[in-house]
């Protein structure tokens, strides 16, 4: 089921307040997104842990409602 990009961004920011989120709708179908998330919360964490924080913010939608979200995470330099 499609999910608007703004909703994805809202959920991520709700879970990770200082997150800088950029979302691209890869096919313009509201179903295949690429998100880049930058946050100080990622400092010192492995990529797996960083993605887990984003998934937790998305509250179980990843893999369900949100089928295809390419994720890139980074801590600010």
């Amino acid at each position, binding site marked *: 089921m499609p999910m608007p990009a703004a909703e994805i961004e809202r959920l991520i920011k709700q879970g990770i307040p200082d997150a800088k989120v950029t979302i691209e709708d890869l096919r313009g179908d509201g179903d295949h997104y690429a998100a880049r998330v930058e946050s100080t919360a990622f400092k010192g964490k492995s*990529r797996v842990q960083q*993605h887990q924080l984003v998934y937790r913010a998305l509250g179980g939608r990843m*893999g369900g409602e949100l089928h295809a979200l*390419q994720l890139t995470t980074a801590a600010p330099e």
Partner: protein
Amino acid sequence: MSEPAVFNRIREEIAENPVTVFMKGSPIFPQCGFSAAVVGVLTHMNVKFKGIDVLSDQDIREGIKAFSNWPTIPQLYVKGEFVGGCDIVREMYQSGELQKLLKDKGVPFAEP
């Protein structure tokens, strides 16, 4: 709370196989683009791996998500350790981190 019985099966698989991919479909016929991408990276690097088709086993399909606290398939394990899903594998390959990880873990690979 006791853990699901399938966790032991997962532990056995990732202990037995130095490189394991939990995926949709088989390495020859992946049933999903993300699974195909991970298979593609490993094949490109000539890494020997075992693909476990979660579509043919509902217990594993749900169990692996809980086991690794990771909501999506595919999932790559190297020497018993969860490495990541499709995005992380691709990113690590491009940055050379995957090559380093395999080398550090003593897993043979050959880049063309």
